[in-house]
């Protein structure tokens, strides 16, 4: 199946001369949840804005569902819904008016039943006649989501959906995102919260300083780059490690009461059996042990450090 979004050799240099995107190539698969992960200022919003037609690319091409976003902007944009990072709303409009406005703007005939259902899903129905300025930040975020969904888009962009959002809304949002995905909508979210990508995404792209440095299935990414750590609680603390164990690159932690062994899950052998045997030979005894897997965050930090 052809990708639903395809970005080719995209670069963006702002008027200030700052290059926010460097030769970005990216394909988003139909129906997936894609998390674009990167620190602040990496270029996530710029990339989304370029795809949505808000920022003019300096070079490169973009297509959405097969439609070039410049030549065939009507068809391309009609497919896309965008929830922006900033809480930009019309203060004086009512919720009902602003959401219906969005639907019209995106070229769809009025459909009060659909808008009503969308507002209900987002727990906004009892606020439908409220002016937006009277709503809380979280409610405004919901309004922006309702606006983005008003024209029944096939592709939904969520730019930093969890920024400044309470737990309840975050959970509501994640539930909604999954429901949308199940109905065939492709979702691209940007975040610098790793947990969000880890929890939600099918695939993860990492962007740093305007470059996509990695795109990977989340599971694959975890497997490929994931390291595991074995922590052994010792019966008696150690001053230093016997030289016989040098090859394992062990670390002593908690004033010598813990031994930490880091190993690669990808390796043919983890070396755990040998380690335990050599520990016994060296007379080091332990009372307990745990293993832990590195989170996306660890992977991410590792990746960025590698490139720095």
């Amino acid at each position: 199946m052809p990708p639903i979004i395809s970005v080719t050799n995209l670069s963006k240099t702002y008027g200030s001369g700052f290059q926010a995107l460097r030769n970005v190539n990216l394909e988003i698969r139909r129906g997936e949840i894609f998390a674009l992960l990167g620190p602040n200022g990496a270029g996530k919003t710029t990339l989304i804005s370029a795809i949505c037609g808000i920022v003019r690319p300096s070079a490169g091409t973009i297509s959405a569902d097969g439609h070039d976003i410049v030549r065939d902007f009507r068809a391309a944009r009609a497919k896309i819904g965008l929830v922006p990072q900033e809480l930009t709303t019309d203060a004086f409009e009512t919720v009902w008016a602003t959401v219906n406005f969005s639907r019209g703007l995106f070229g769809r005939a009025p459909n009060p039943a659909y808008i009503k259902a969308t507002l209900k899903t987002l727990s906004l129905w009892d606020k439908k006649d409220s002016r937006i300025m009277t709503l809380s930040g979280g409610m405004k975020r919901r309004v922006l989501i309702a606006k983005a969904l008003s024209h029944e888009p096939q592709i939904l962009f969520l730019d930093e959906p969890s920024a400044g959002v309470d737990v309840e809304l975050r959970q509501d949002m994640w539930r909604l995102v999954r429901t949308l995905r199940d109905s065939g909508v492709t979702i691209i979210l940007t975040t610098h919260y790793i947990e969000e990508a880890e929890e939600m995404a099918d695939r993860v792209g990492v962007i740093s300083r305007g470059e996509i440095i990695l795109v990977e299935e989340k599971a694959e990414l975890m497997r490929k780059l994931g390291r595991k750590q074995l922590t052994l609680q010792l019966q008696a603390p150690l001053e230093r490690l016997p030289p016989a164990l040098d090859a394992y690159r062990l670390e002593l932690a908690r004033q010598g009461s813990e031994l930490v062994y880091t190993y690669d899950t990808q390796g043919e052998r983890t070396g755990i059996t040998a380690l335990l045997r050599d520990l016994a030979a060296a007379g080091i005894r332990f009372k307990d042990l745990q293993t832990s897997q590195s989170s996306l965050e660890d992977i991410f930090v590792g990746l960025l450090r590698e490139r720095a």
Partner: protein
Amino acid sequence: MNVHAVRAIYGFEMARTRRTLLQSVVAPVISTSLYFVVFGAAIGSRISNVEGVPYGAFIVPGLVMLSLLTQSIANASFGIYFPRFSGTIYEILSAPISPFEIVLGYVGAAATKSIALGAIILLTASLFVPLRIEHPGWMALFLVLTAATFSLFGFIIGLWADGFEKLQLVPLLVVTPLTFLGGSFYSVDMLPPAWQTVALFNPVLYLVSGFRWSFFGQADVSVGASLGMTLAFLGGCLALVTWMFRTGYRLKS
């Protein structure tokens, strides 16, 4: 053509007008009435007739033009400036809508409002002085063309402005003086000869003159020149706004 989108923008702008009914309709009516009291009654009692028309009636077309120009510019410039300022413009920019449709929605709404306002002022005026309209068709044409042209001009100012001061600057420093000096309250014949020549460089003079002709059948310049000037200005604004959208001027970084 994305008809739903044009309708959405137009409806949004008209809703904004309804919310600010007091300042957008009542205020101009009051200021027009004040002009009548000052110019029509106070000065008009000294100037009986201008070219055979009672002074009170003579200033009506100029007054309508004055409001038409300032209100068209104010409405349209604010209409597009505000979403730029608040950030809600992102939605317009990401929607499947062409620049022409955006202009149609915003400028159409601003022009509609101005035309309604022009009609209200005419009605208000008819309470003060007996009015006759010799060429109603032309009157309507000038009304619509002027409202559309200056709403488009206002739209351009709203795109150009990068602060609220600039939004006020052009209307205050350029348009209001040109309107006052454009023969709203006098006939160019009443000026000294040298100033008559200067006045001919004022584009607003042509609008007022043409509009007044449609009422009383007499003008400072020929109707053709008036119409030509209006169309030329409209053409210039269209070219400018096309260029702005093509280059993304102050809309897209």
